[in-house]
């Protein structure tokens, strides 16, 4: 894992003191809320439905056990004993006091964490594949490249007042586990025929009210020009992105309106100019960072077998574990989606337990996933059963990764002042209704957003649900056929919306149509793509 040096630490510490000063000026009345708002947002502090909310960055989703422990301790000390892991691999606390916010940032800084740029019209936390460094199918560990981007984007002087927020993701596998093409910039690290690493740039993706899949604008940027190329992409956006309408201000609209060719031509011209400015960190810096992401000391003699005699454990093993690049090891997903639970929420005790388990069984490391779960990336197969027993006892052993109960849901109207409808109760009811059929249904990614901003990724759900406000009453629209993987697609709306109970029935009917129509081995998405919308519509509205 990346360790801060004195420079990184000084940056974060200085930021804490700056924010302490800003909060003091606000509390003493020297600045108004209008002036304070952009400052607190740059530090991840929102004024939400019930209180202040703090969003803490988890760079590329990677946490040490000490960091996870601190997240749990903060939940107890400053909040109400829990936190919410988000679709951007971050964590949010819902009940923060403004006067305590600087102290929280100071505690975070003690474990090399921060809330810098987790909101505001700037470059946000860079996300990545939760199995980075463990996955058998990766070209290279993407996290050093994401760390390079983290440093470049931190307090970037030119790009702190962009037309709108800006999200980047970096992956290094053909299987996209980070919804890369639904980001403002998605980077896929690739190897060319000479064996060199380069960055394929996908620019202009996003969800929200105008979902777009990012087009590929450059298939191979040499790795020692990745930052310069990013700077060129951003500069064209900062200069020409729309500022007249906040709903048309994301880079996806600029790329769409200019057209991919024109946008790319402008980026290439800016890139040529910027190459003369020597802004690229040297490869020595990348090497320094890479040295901190070397493999942990894997045991070459680790047994490669698992005792699967306990059927509940075998089910969890089949569902929640991913092959590891090293024999004898396996990557484990801890589901934060217990049946009837709140997707992505974890109590302080659960966070501390996961910290302990990461230390004991996964070389001190865990990951946050964009699907709001936690991964222990490097578990010895020999330890798997013991680990599962401890998880199960703590309510963290649900066997439902990528199943219908593994629902992505935004906080919705229960917590969020932008929401139009509640998301969590719908997720809870669906999970309770369909958990018995989970194994029969197989892979099915269900995603719920409480408004068109799409924090719950509903466009990218095999089944997506969008909550809307219909004359003051919550109403839910159903979408089918979205996917965030390598074959990214956007869901299509089925027709008129449903009330809260109606949407649960509609999801159940949708799964019944699938189960009746499915041919050998098809996932829900495969069947939908083969048979189309018609039979589903017929069952829902016929």
């Amino acid at each position, binding site marked *: 894992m990346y360790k801060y040096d004195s420079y990184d630490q000084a940056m974060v510490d200085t930021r804490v003191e700056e924010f302490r000063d800003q909060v003091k000026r606000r509390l003493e009345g020297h600045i108004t809320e209008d002036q304070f708002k952009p400052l607190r947002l740059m530090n991840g502090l929102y004024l939400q439905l019930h209180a202040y909310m703090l969003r803490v960055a988890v760079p590329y989703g990677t946490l040490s056990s000490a960091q996870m422990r601190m997240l749990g301790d903060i939940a107890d000390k400053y909040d109400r004993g829990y936190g919410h892991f988000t679709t951007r691999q971050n964590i949010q606390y819902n009940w923060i006091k403004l006067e305590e916010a600087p102290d929280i940032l100071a505690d975070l800084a003690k474990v090399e964490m921060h809330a810098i740029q987790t909101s505001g*019209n700037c470059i946000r936390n860079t996300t990545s594949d939760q199995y980075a460094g463990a996955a058998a199918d990766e070209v290279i560990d993407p996290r050093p490249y994401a760390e390079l981007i983290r440093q470049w984007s931190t307090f970037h*002087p030119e790009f702190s007042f962009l037309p709108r927020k800006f999200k980047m993701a970096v992956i290094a596998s053909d299987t996209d586990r980070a919804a890369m093409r639904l980001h403002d910039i998605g980077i896929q690290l690739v190897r060319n025929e000479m064996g060199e690493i380069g960055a394929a740039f996908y620019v202009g993706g996003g969800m929200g009210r105008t979902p777009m899949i990012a087009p590929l604008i450059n298939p191979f940027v040499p790795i020692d020009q990745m930052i310069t190329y990013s700077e060129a992409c951003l500069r064209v956006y*900062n200069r020409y992105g729309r*500022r007249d309408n906040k709903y048309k201000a994301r880079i996806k609209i600029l790329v769409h309106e200019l057209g991919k060719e024109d946008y790319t031509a402008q980026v290439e011209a800016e890139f040529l100019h910027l190459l003369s400015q020597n802004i690229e960190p040297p490869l020595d810096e990348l090497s*320094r960072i890479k040295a901190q992401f070397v493999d942990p000391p894997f045991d070459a003699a680790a047994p490669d077998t698992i005792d699967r005699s306990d059927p509940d454990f075998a089910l969890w093993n089949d569902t929640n574990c991913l092959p590891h690049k090293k024999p004898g090891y396996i990557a484990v997903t801890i589901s934060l989606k217990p049946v009837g639970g709140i997707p992505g929420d974890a109590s302080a005790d659960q966070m501390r337990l996961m910290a302990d388990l990461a230390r004991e069984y996964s070389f001190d490391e865990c990951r946050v996933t964009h699907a709001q779960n936690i991964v222990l990336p490097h578990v010895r197969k020999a330890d798997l059963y013991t680990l599962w027993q401890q998880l199960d006892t703590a309510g963290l052993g649900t066997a439902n990764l990528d199943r219908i109960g593994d629902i992505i849901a935004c906080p919705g109207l229960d917590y969020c002042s932008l929401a139009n409808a509640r998301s969590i109760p719908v997720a809870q009811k669906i999970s309770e209704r369909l958990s018995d059929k989970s194994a029969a249904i197989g892979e099915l990614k269900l995603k719920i957003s409480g408004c068109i901003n799409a924090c719950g990724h509903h466009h990218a759900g095999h089944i997506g649900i969008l909550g809307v406000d219909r004359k003051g009453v919550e109403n839910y629209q159903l979408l089918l056929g979205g996917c965030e993987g390598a074959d990214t697609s956007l869901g299509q709306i089925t027709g008129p919306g449903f009330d809260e109970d109606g949407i649960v029935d509609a999801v159940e009917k949708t799964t019944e149509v699938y189960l009746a129509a499915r041919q050998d081995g098809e996932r829900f998405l495969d069947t939908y793509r083969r048979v189309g919308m018609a039979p589903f519509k017929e069952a829902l509205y016929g």
Partner: protein
Amino acid sequence: MAEPQYRFRDDEPVGDPAVTVDSFGDQSNAAAVRIEPGDDARALLPHLERIRLVEVNFPVFGDGRGYSAARILREAGYQGELRAVGDVLVDQVAFLRRCGFDAFAPEVPLNPADAEAAFIRFDNVYQPTIDGRTPIWALRHG
């Protein structure tokens, strides 16, 4: 013309009124120009040698196009005064300075103590810009 509250230059301030970017090319005796957010700073590049003052207007602090305009001018070798005017807030001055601004004429004057703290708060920076500060990666690798 807005008088700067802060000016990090020793030369004589330019007293000429600034003209707009689109008229600047035709006024061969003008030495001061004002960039609005929608203007293309690169339109000034053919005339850099006779410009002594560029005012970049920030009608609202959240419109960050002026940061790019400033860097583009400095990257092209512009040596004259670069003045931020308009809705310039204390918590932006360090970023503006990094982008090449060397004069500040905020509509609402900044609290001097806050501004002085803001200019010098961060000892180091992650990115190289035309301000010449050594980025952290260069400090790490000598």
